[in-house]
């Protein structure tokens, strides 16, 4: 579905991604894990077109999306739920959801998808007229995920969805991501919360200093010695 082939990414003159290749198959949950600064978010930003690879290519269902204008990416079926939620804080919950469905089929089905989002997150329904900036951290993350769902994605990318949330909320968010996958959306997730991420991931890649160092199924990585010592603290 999504193929990343040998990409190099730079910030100015500084290379941060070194020859990374990986793929995400239909209906999988794939995780990118690694420490701060390993290049996880950079990878997602490159897929969504905010950054461009200097070398290599990114194919989504055969389309070379590294050449697509960033604002057109959502029409190919990729939705990026960015790190730090990036909500439109001075707009209401409902307006934020509208912003997630500006194009094509997502726009025609806006009412239906919104009902689904409210069913997954009843809290958002209660607060639909409230400004996004007045929501709690957990509610904001729900809204960010909901806003992503409004785009009817084929592939939904999550950047640190558990960041800054209490353990109970983290569990909720991971359950939602599992549910999204069960409803047929493919998921690419970037996380520092390695243990829980690997538990739901079909496959995962470990990034270190801008390179992929280990890959395998979620389960095999949970038992990998290097992953255990470096990320799980056991």
């Amino acid at each position, binding site marked *: 579905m999504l193929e990343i082939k040998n990409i190099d990414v730079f910030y100015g003159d500084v290379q941060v991604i070194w020859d990374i290749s990986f793929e995400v198959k239909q209906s999988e949950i794939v995780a990118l894990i690694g420490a701060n600064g390993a290049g996880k978010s950079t990878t997602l930003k490159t897929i*969504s077109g*905010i950054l461009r690879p200097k070398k290599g290519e990114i194919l989504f269902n055969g389309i070379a999306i590294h050449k697509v*204008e*960033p*604002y*057109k*990416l*959502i*029409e190919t079926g990729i*939705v*990026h739920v*960015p790190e730090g939620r*990036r*909500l*439109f*804080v*001075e*707009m209401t919950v409902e*307006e934020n959801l*509208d*912003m*997630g469905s*500006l*194009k094509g089929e997502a*726009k025609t089905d806006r009412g239906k998808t919104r009902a689904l989002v409210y069913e997954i997150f009843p809290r958002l329904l209660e607060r639909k007229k409230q*400004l996004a*900036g*007045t929501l709690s951290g957990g509610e904001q993350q729900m809204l960010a995920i909901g*806003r992503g769902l409004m*785009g009817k994605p084929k592939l939904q990318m999550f950047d640190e969805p558990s960041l800054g949330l209490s353990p109970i909320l983290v569990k909720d968010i991971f359950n939602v991501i599992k549910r999204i996958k069960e409803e047929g959306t493919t998921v690419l997730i970037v996380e520092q919360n390695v243990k829980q991420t690997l538990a739901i991931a079909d496959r995962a890649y470990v990034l270190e200093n801008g390179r992929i160092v280990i890959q395998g199924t979620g389960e095999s990585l949970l038992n990998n010695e290097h992953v255990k010592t470096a990320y799980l603290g056991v």
Partner: protein
Amino acid sequence: MAQLELFLQTLISGFLLGGLYALIALGMALIMGVMRVINLAHGDFMMIAMYIAYWLFTFFGIDPYVSVFIAAPAMFLFGLGIQKYLLTPVMKVDSILPHNQVILTVGLAMVFSNLATVFFTGDYRSTPVSYASSAWYLTDFWKNSPVELSLSMPWTLSFIIAVMITIALWIFLTKTDTGKSIRATSQDLDAALLMGVNVNWVRMVTFGIGLVLVAVAGCLFLPIYYLYPALGKQFTNIGFVIAVIGGMGSTDGAIIGGLILGIFESMTATYIGMGWAPAGRFSIFVAALVFLPGGVASILRKRRLGK
């Protein structure tokens, strides 16, 4: 009683003036919010719109209030072009100064006001409309009113049209996808991009709408003001002062700031002297910078978001 009458009359004229100021500042605020650029040619765009209305009146006898419907669309298209062919390309240039676009607007202001001087001479012009000195009086409606107040007809008409335009803008910004995209882009550009907003298109539309607002303000000012090529600078100043009072890039702030400045200037003119209005403008400008650096918008934001 005469004192009270004077005060109320001053308040009313200030309010009417403030409504027009708000319209100028609204355009500036929209552009500032989305592009993070202070449009220092704002008043000069208003000057262009005023000349359009002036010539339409002189050659075809079209009332300046009707010219709104000609000048505003023309300025909208002009704005799309300026953004697309001048401002957007400049954004991509690396330079030691981060605000190339602001410098470009300064250049545009110079070009426009000088071209206007070349083509239209520096003469002061005005449109002698028939209703220029008509007014409504309070005693016409309320025979035994203890105070006598008057409402100048062109001022009131201008104010009412300004309010209608503001309401139309509000509906556009809150009810349409394009309007929401404009607000979203001003709040978080990258996130808007991820949502599929064509940011360059939004920039063009925003600049166009900003010019529509200032064009309307120009047409509304024409029957009650005079026109000359260098008038733009003064109104750019006013727009900028209001932006500081209201809070940079905030549309609500622009409306409140416009009314505050209108009333303040009117009060200075009445109680201190006509010539002191610009001095009043700058004292409130400095006061806003010192005592309320975020402008009215910072108070509104605090109340809305609770932080």
